[in-house]
């Protein structure tokens, strides 16, 4: 599938072959270099005509030994662009540094892979939904070379055998979708002879006009990748009606050049994958996960016809330990550069690596030339912002999916900064609350209302104490009652008496406690309202206390005299009534005071 998309143009120049592909296009050149001259040669010049050079996205050269294993030792060679003054300016030159110098008479085989984008031009430029997309490719039948060429042949591989037209030369052979030219012998330097191919191609021309990949590193264990795509169908523009009915009923010949899904190969263990755009989640996606890779199939909201655009965002989290490595005190992130979407040509790719706040000594390394600079981004709870390494590259093809590295220094303690900040923030809020509750915020400390309020607070404290004492008294009463109940069950008079004794002692203490409280209450003028109630309460309580004592002693006496239970009950009954009534009154008073 992937291969059939590409137009393969294979050049062979006297055992030197070349290939090309594209959006667009891929070229592969296989050259056999022989040094005829007296000089020792250490580099080879590659030339591309202007037509191609502006579309050139990717170029590698590799060598294998002429003798020996052809596949075993493939070494990619350093390439650099050169400007040569004495050469035609219509061509761009790249020089390949050979691994070893080639002496006169020796030979050397070089594989050159060049990828071009936007080299296929749709002709006609606008088609209706029913039409078939035709594209035009132009090249030279002779491989442009600054050297003399002994032998050259060219083979062009098209995606389909439906070829509208192609340049016919004397030595042209067509095998299905492959067209072969040559071999040609003894060509002078810079020989050119244009050829064109006009052929059917219903392959999706998915082009990302802009892709922003944001890779955010969190040392808490996550690498968050967010990719913003701006996608266009780069093929022939659709014109006229778009009929959904036709598209649904006959998708193969109505809108055949449209593509309705894309496949992204996410790294294994990608998690929380999402796919959305500006107006919300896009529900048409499928994620297939197995142990080696995650495959995300996404459908844009609508089928992409020629010239239609869309924009969306995909995002996923990755486990940190798979991508972040430590070397000495340096840490480095090792990730692929390009988009996980296969078969996507990217016009402008911006990769932003957001490092954790507090990182230093930042540098980035990529296997191909790249524009880079640094920014800061302020994210969750940052103070100074996080350093961002921005890498920009135009004309990116899947061949660029190589690993790049971002090196930085980061101390593990900085991780704790944000949690600590939160903790201290909350601490501060609570402390401020406590402080506010305890602080006196009134402006005038001598105003009457303020003093009255303060006094009232003191009175309340006192009343609280009074209530406390009363409650303890009531508790004592309950104790006595309980002891009486025990008595009626067990008949243990001694225990009952002991309880009485302790109760007596405690009650006395309590009444002692009560006295200073009452006197100090009297001192307050603002307590005047409540004082009678409190006094009444104390009086009632005392009465109740007496009655309880009386009841207790009567009951105990009764037991000592061994009188019948009925007799005791009879005697106590009257007291009990009074006690209940008093208790009720005390309760009511307590309630009342409480309400104030």
């Amino acid at each position, binding site marked *: 599938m992937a291969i059939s998309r590409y137009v393969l143009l294979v050049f062979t120049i006297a055992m030197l072959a070349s290939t090309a592909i594209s959006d667009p296009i891929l070229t592969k050149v296989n050259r056999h270099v022989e040094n005829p001259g007296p000089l020792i040669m250490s580099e080879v010049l590659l030339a591309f005509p202007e037509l191609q050079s502006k579309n050139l996205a990717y170029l590698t050269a590799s060598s294998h030994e002429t003798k020996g294993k052809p596949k075993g030792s493939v070494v990619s060679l350093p390439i650099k662009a050169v400007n040569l003054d004495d050469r035609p300016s219509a061509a761009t030159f790249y020089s390949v540094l050979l691994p070893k110098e080639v002496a006169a008479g020796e030979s050397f085989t070089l594989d050159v892979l060049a990828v071009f984008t936007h080299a296929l031009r749709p002709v006609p430029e606008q088609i*209706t939904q*029913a*039409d078939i997309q035709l594209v035009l490719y132009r090249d030279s039948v002779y491989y442009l070379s600054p050297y003399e060429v002994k032998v050259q042949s060219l083979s062009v591989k098209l995606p389909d055998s439906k070829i509208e037209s192609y340049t016919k030369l004397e030595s042209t052979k067509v095998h299905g979708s492959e067209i072969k030219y040559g071999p040609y012998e003894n060509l002078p330097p810079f020989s050119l002879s244009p050829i064109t191919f006009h052929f059917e191609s219903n392959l999706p021309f998915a082009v990302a006009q802009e892709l922003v990949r944001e890779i955010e590193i969190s040392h808490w264990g996550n690498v968050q990748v967010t990719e913003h795509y701006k996608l266009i169908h780069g093929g022939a523009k659709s*014109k*006229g*009606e*778009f*009929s*959904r*009915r*036709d598209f649904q*009923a006959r998708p193969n010949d109505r809108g055949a050049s449209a593509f309705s899904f894309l496949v992204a190969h996410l790294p294994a263990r990608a998690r929380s994958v999402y796919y959305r*755009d*500006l*107006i*919300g*989640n*896009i*529900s*048409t996606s499928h994620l297939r996960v197995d142990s080696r890779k995650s495959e995300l199939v996404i459908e844009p*909201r*609508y089928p992409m016809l020629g010239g*239609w*655009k*869309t*924009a969306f965002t995909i995002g996923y989290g990755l486990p940190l330990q798979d991508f972040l490595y430590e070397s000495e005190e340096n840490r480095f992130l090792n990730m692929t550069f390009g988009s996980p979407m296969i078969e996507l040509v990217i016009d402008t790719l911006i990769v932003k690596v957001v490092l954790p706040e507090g990182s230093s000594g930042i540098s980035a390394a990529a296997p191909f030339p790249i524009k880079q600079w640094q920014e800061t981004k*302020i*994210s*969750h*709870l*940052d*103070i100074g912002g996080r350093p961002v390494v921005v890498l920009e590259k135009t004309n990116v093809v899947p061949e660029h999916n190589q690993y790049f590295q971002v090196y930085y220094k980061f101390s593990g303690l900085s991780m704790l900064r944000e949690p600590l900040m939160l903790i201290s923030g909350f601490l501060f809020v609570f402390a401020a609350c406590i402080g506010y509750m305890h602080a006196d915020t009134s402006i005038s400390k001598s105003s009457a209302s303020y003093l009255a309020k303060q006094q009232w607070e003191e009175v309340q404290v006192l009343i*609280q104490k009074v*209530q*406390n004492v009363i*409650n*303890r008294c*009531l*508790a004592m009463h*309950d104790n006595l009652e309980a002891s009486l109940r025990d008595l009626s069950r067990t008949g243990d008079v001694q225990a009952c008496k002991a309880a009485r004794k302790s109760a007596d002692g405690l009650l006395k203490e309590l009444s002692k406690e009560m006295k200073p409280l009452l006197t100090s209450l009297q001192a307050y003028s603002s307590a005047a*309202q409540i004082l009678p109630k409190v006094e009444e309460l104390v009086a009632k309580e005392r009465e109740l206390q007496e009655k309880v004592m009386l009841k207790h002693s009567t009951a105990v006496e009764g037991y000592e005299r061994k009188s019948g239970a009925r007799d005791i009950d009879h005697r106590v009954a009257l007291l009990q009534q009074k006690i*209940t009534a008093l208790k009720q009154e005390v*309760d*009511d008073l*307590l*309630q*009342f005071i*409480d*309400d104030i």
Partner: protein
Amino acid sequence: MAAPETSTAAVPTLYTNNTLRNAFGGVLSFFILLLIGVMAFSIRLFSVIKYESVIHEFDPYFNYRVTQFLAKNGIYEFWNWFDDRTWYPLGRVIGGTVYPGLTLTAGTIWWLLNSLNIPLSVETVCVFTAPIFSAFASWATFLLTKEVKGTGAGLTAAALLAMVPSYISRSVAGSYDNEAVAIFALIFTFYLYIKTLNTGSLFYATLNSIAYFYMVCSWGGYTFIINLIPMHVLLCIVTGRFSSRLYIAYAPLVVLGTLLAALVPVVGFNAVMTSEHFASFLVFIILHVVAFVYYIKGILSPKMFKVAVTLVVSVGLAVCCAVIAVLIALVASSPTKGWSGRSLSLLDPTYASKYIPIIASVSEHQPPTWPSYFMDINVLAFLVPAGIIACFSPLSDSSSFVVLYIATSVYFSGVMVRLMLVFAPAACITSGIALSQSFDVFTRSIKFQLPGISSNTEVDAAETSSATAEAQNDAVKTEKSEETSKNRPSKKSKKKEKEEKPSTKAKAEKRLLALPLDSSVISLLLLILLGAFYVVHCVWAAAEAYSAPSIVLTSRSHDGLHVFDDFREAYGWLRHNTDVDDKVASWWDYGYQTTAMANRTVIVDNNTWNNTHIATVGTAMSSPEKAAWEIFHSLDVKYVLVVFGGLVGYPSDDINKFLWMVRIGGGVFPHIKEPDYLRDGQYRIDSQATPTMLNCLMYKLSYYRFVETDGKGFDRVRQTEIGKKHFKLTHFEEVFTTHHWMVRIYKLKPPKNRIRGKTKKSKSKTSSTSSRGKRSGSGKKNPWQ
């Protein structure tokens, strides 16, 4: 559940320490309130969990767009914002015609979060504004009900409000509409009014005006406040409950409130000019007269007072007559008697359907049906009468307010479905009072009936269970508030002596009122059952009925969940594949969504301020193709968007709304006549339909090439075969149709070149030579070609 345990553990040692128990009560009710807030927030998250975090419906999209603008451009730009992307070519002054409360609230939240470096998107903030404010609203309900009937009733009412379906329907996450914050503002304003009334504090009166200002900012429903409060004041005066507290509660509200309201651009001078506000000023005058009379009465001897009364009455009457005459003359000079259309349709429910079809066409302006009452307030409908009775025993200033509130809101909710939302808090408050009072009665009777407890009630009360302890605690408080409210009208000096007696008396009475044990236990169980039923219903309503965002539809079939995301598909297509300045015409329902999601200029939108403009679009939709093309072309329209549900059975599509387009269009352009579209008074699209109907643009755009889908053209919404099956479009071309055909977008064909002297021939020529020629060649199967 930790709190009750510790309280039971603490009780034996400290015994019944009232203050401690109150403290526990306070902490307990604080935690209950916190949980109620959490519940109010989380019950509204069903939409996010089941669907996604997205803005719902129509109006919220506009609010979202305004908030985005505010967040991006700042407040001053916002006030001056002239939006040229709607109501083309008129435009709309957004800053001056929008209630800014919601947008400013969400904008402020967003700004606060962003300045704390918490980079949430505007959308996220907007989605969660409504749930947050519903938590606030339930707390405000607690405060209001607490002022009326004590903490217990407050907590119950807050819990009921937190999950009342009527309110949920407007405040699920994503439902970013004015009502979301307005209900909180409404309840809070009422609370502050009651608080002022109970305390007579100027501090609260000022706060009240500010709350009222916030309400005015948020929602047009503020007129309800400014009419209800004067009504209550009048009621108090008439029933002889005038006091200085009443004066403090009302006078500052009118003065400050009106001044503040006039600051909101959308209200402006309406705050003093329209009849909606008239009642408040009238009552303001009456209040002053009454206050003056009371003052005079206080300083004069009875004899002198009589003289003064005659004097004042004669002079005052003359002045009043003059003033009223002037006012009536002013009011009568305006055609609508100074009332806005929506307010008039509230007073006269038949008004809108007679005169303003555009108000009547909105489904939320229709009167509700009985089932919708059951759906929206459920068991509260049965509890409300009990709550009203509870408000009458004893009747205080505050409880009379609640009675008045529920009475008026019942009426309003009966006129418009939308105002059910105002009714819901009132229903929750009264039901909360009813529930807590009945719980109070039942638990108390159980407590007194249980053997061996009567001797020391309090210990056991605390020990029995947390529920009864709490109820009793509440009982104590309600009793207190009852007493205080009872005593309030009396003078302060008398207060002390009086207060003691009722408390003992009340206790004695309560004991006599105890119900039999078994019946109270059974009633308690039944009440709990009722409450459980309510909770189940609310959760169901929140999860199933009200959480659908309406831009994403789902249907459950045997092979799982099916998602219909056609609206966003169409808006997405418009956004990316049309020119930024293209104009899109559609019925006004989709205006807000088109501007917000597709970012394209629309002709009309949901802010139906210009009837003529809407009528123009309605006319175009109901005209034949050529006439429609001319109308649209004169409006610079490039694309026409129609919503069509016939393929998948989506009932609220344009064909079903079509009669309203005809009516609204016909209201302004008389050549559109409704009877032309009806066959014997019936609206139909099958073969019996009238030719006018079958030839109108809406029909054609909806059913263009529809017959090819199944060969018959069976409309699954109308359940018939369509009348006219095979036809071509001459002035429009289909440019996009979504996956389920729910949205169809057509492009206006460019005007044809005029060929002189060949007008007749040119028709056949153009159809074969134009771009469509190719299609007709390829589509030979099509029977009509």
